[in-house]
């Protein structure tokens, strides 16, 4: 996964912060890998990876009973997790419970349309390069506005730079 690829998801995910009540979002491929995130740092990558796998299994669960989910909404006491399924994965948006739902739905549709082709390319590329394991999380997003996640001006988190001569995949040396 390259920075260029992850950056391509950035504008889409960031645009979701235009909506009041959106706390963050992340993109999951059908293999459960999290390819981009715009979430508070309090949710670490390992945790998000576990979430990603379960998001995909959730969709698989409904598939097994003949339902092809386009949308799943998990409602919690004070939050919602809006999961918009696309061909190659899912766009997950964490919101407050009182988020403007019609606006969120429209925004999610717009972002999903924008990121779906790239997500498919990422998935295809990953399959060409390495096996789907080990899975990883690509961190490419800035902290959402209004959330004390990182010092102002702090650079967005990114996979560690690869030492010379070492091939990196999702922040980990391979080969």
């Amino acid at each position, binding site marked *: 996964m390259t920075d260029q690829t992850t950056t391509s998801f950035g504008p889409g995910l960031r645009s979701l912060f235009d909506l009041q009540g959106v706390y963050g979002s992340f993109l999951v491929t059908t293999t459960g890998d999290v390819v981009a995130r715009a979430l508070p740092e309090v949710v670490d990558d390992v945790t998000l990876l576990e979430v990603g796998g379960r998001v995909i299994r959730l969709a698989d*669960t409904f598939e097994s009973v003949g339902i092809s*989910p386009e949308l799943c909404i*998990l*409602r919690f006491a004070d939050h919602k997790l809006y999961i918009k399924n696309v061909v190659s994965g899912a766009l997950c948006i964490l919101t407050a419970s009182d988020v403007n739902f019609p606006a969120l739905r429209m925004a999610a549709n717009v972002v999903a349309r924008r990121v779906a082709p790239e997500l498919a390319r990422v998935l295809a590329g990953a399959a060409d390069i390495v096996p789907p394991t080990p899975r990883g999380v690509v961190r490419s997003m800035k902290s959402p506005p209004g959330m004390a996640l990182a010092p102002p001006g702090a650079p967005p988190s990114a996979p560690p730079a690869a030492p010379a001569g070492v091939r990196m995949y999702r922040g980990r040396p391979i080969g």
Partner: protein
Amino acid sequence: MARIDRAMATPASSRKSASRPAIPLGDSSDPSPDQSAIVSLWDLVQQECSSHARRSVRIQSDGQTGLLFFDAGRIVHAETADAFGEPAALKILAWQSGSFDPCDATWPRSTSISCSVVSLFSRAPTAHPSNLVAFPARPPASDGLPSPADPESWLYADDNGESEVTKPGAVMVDDELSGTVRVGADGTVLESVDGELADAVAYAGRLSELIGELLGLDGFRALECASKEERVMIYADESGGLVGGRVPIGADVGALRNRLGL
């Protein structure tokens, strides 16, 4: 044909501690032949629904005649001289006196009522407990199913006629959910007409809880899953279990969410 006196009976829902017969109230031009045989319309309809029999019933009241068609534990069709479907059912359920007898009416080509009987009762003009009418009791159903004490409990009676603990909010949800599945907090399937869906509800509910825990989201309340064809709704009940079912296209999902407090 059993006669019905104009009488008022405390609905089953409000007389859990009271034993039958219901006490008839008000004037009656025709004295009640047997007070012990008086039951409310709730009870009669419950008996029919609990039997899950496919049967038509003729109700006559003050020169009016109506037909209720029962199938698989529901009223699926109703007719009066000037109404059809739900309006007819609501009209019949509002009648204050009459007779209630099985008949061999021609079965409708298609059903006209999809909501639950509880929903019909709740919308009928006589829905208020003090207005529920009394009807003469019929002999116990041939299938031996007990008549539940709680008018809501029969909705979730299992094959043995034994009722589950019923949550007040869950009953109304039945209006929109089809193939309702109930899974206990320990994973036990309490009610299911669709084994696969029950498994899916249990697993999806658990996944949702885990996703919430991982993201720091407390209090899983519900999951909605929508496809082009249908929607599945799963919600956590007060006992920590899960209730789920398919929501038909066109159902009032907003009302359903409101009832669940979502």
